[in-house]
């Protein structure tokens, strides 16, 4: 379980997160939504310890985050943009991350097979297309069977086939009891994947609850319109 309590983050004179409090239950699948620059990525990065909050606390499975690092072995993270040292090969990068996470012994290589990445293994990363790099990125996030998956716009840049492979994987991991947090601008993914929705607007939570509650809270009939109406209300 992740407990976020009154989280504040300032970048210079700009307040990106304005007192965020939320609880993310173990085994839930949470969709983090909001317009550009609403603080989604900053919130995710705070959980990963990449961004240091100005105020407030995050507690992950009873452990308070304060610059410690070992808790990250529970997390698989797929960043928005994938970039790797350009002269390494796909195989080397995957082995490298495996090396860094020496505690894991069994690897989940299902995505590597389904994306047929094996045939790209000897290629250098600078010679790969953006979509293929994104696939490598996804494979790394799922490789270690982490309890918590954090996916920042996972399907952006993927073709429809790969995108549905990834979505199936997300759903099956959810069935296995993984906690999943993801962001996306495709509302269709919300319909397909999410149970819980956290709606961020200008650094504040505008809505936090189940998908059905979100639809009922407005007089709209589907999610897309419900979210659009919250965005317009502001």
């Amino acid at each position: 379980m992740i407990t976020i309590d009154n989280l504040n983050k300032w970048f210079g004179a700009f307040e990106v997160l304005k007192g965020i409090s939320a609880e993310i239950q173990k085994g839930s699948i949470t969709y983090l939504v909001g317009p550009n620059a609403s603080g989604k990525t900053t919130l995710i990065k705070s959980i990963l310890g990449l961004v240091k909050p100005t105020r407030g606390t995050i507690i992950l499975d009873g452990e308070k985050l304060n610059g410690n690092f070992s808790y990250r072995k529970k997390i698989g993270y797929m960043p928005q943009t994938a970039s790797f040292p350009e002269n390494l090969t796909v195989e080397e990068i995957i082995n490298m991350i495996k090396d860094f996470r020496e505690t894991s012994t069994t690897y989940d290589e299902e995505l590597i097979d389904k994306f047929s990445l094996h045939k790209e293994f000897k290629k250098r990363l600078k010679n790969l297309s953006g979509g293929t790099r994104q696939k490598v990125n996804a494979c790394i996030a799922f490789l270690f069977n982490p309890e918590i998956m954090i996916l920042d716009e996972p399907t952006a840049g993927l073709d429809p086939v790969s995108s549905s492979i990834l979505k199936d994987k997300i759903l099956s991991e959810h069935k296995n009891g993984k906690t999943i947090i993801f962001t996306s601008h495709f509302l269709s993914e919300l319909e397909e994947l999410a149970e819980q929705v956290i709606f961020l607007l200008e650094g504040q939570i505008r809505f936090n609850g189940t998908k059905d509650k979100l639809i009922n809270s407005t007089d709209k009939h589907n999610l897309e319109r419900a979210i659009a109406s919250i965005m317009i209300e502001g």
Partner: protein
Amino acid sequence: MNIILKIIRYQIHDISRSKWLVFYTLFFFLITYGLTSFSNDQSKVILSLLNVSLIIIPLVSIIFGTVYLYNNKDFIVLILSQPIKRSVLYLGLYLGLVIPLSFSFVIGTLVPLIILGNKIPVQFTLLIFLFAAGLSQTIIFVSISFLIATWNENRILGLGLSIFTWLVFSVLYDGLLLLIINVFQSYPLEKALIGFSIFNPVDLARIIVILKLDVAALMGYTGAVFQKFFNTNLGIIISIMCLIGWTVVPLIIGKRKFSKKDF
């Protein structure tokens, strides 16, 4: 400790395939080969090599270091989302860059000297001093470059600052010293000059090697004062301490900044 070695290993894999590192090695190879072919006096060859190295090594180290950190920002984020301590990553990246750069310099210089070794006898003491000077510049300027790149989010500004830092230590500092000597020529400035030289890592390395080349006599009275200072134990200890300081201080400040930074 284990993790740091792994980071270094993968980074060496990456950097050793970079074409810039190949150019860098080739550069030293050609310079050394050329100089050795033209001269039979190895002291002169090493003195010329020293002058070239003291311009090129700081420049390449500081720019390569800055650009490397900026180019790999997303990758650093990916590594930091693994269970790895930030300070370990910083030191790993630092050593992973210093080792190939140093290796490149030593190989590029040593190979032509060995190839042409039958022509003139190799003076090992001098060579060791040349390598020590070159390696000290590599570790110092990569350390400074990491500090600059960690401190500045803006890569144009960071790169500008790096080039400016190099310009200050390689050119402007000496110009300023000459100006001071000229303006205050009627005063005894020798001791003050020792003080000034110590605060420039490039000058410090140059002076130490020049004194070992026994050409200090050509530097007149100032040379004699320098010889007297740098040949005492105290002088050597102070200069080594300064070179270490130029490495460790930027490294520690950079590491601290890196640990507190938002990615």
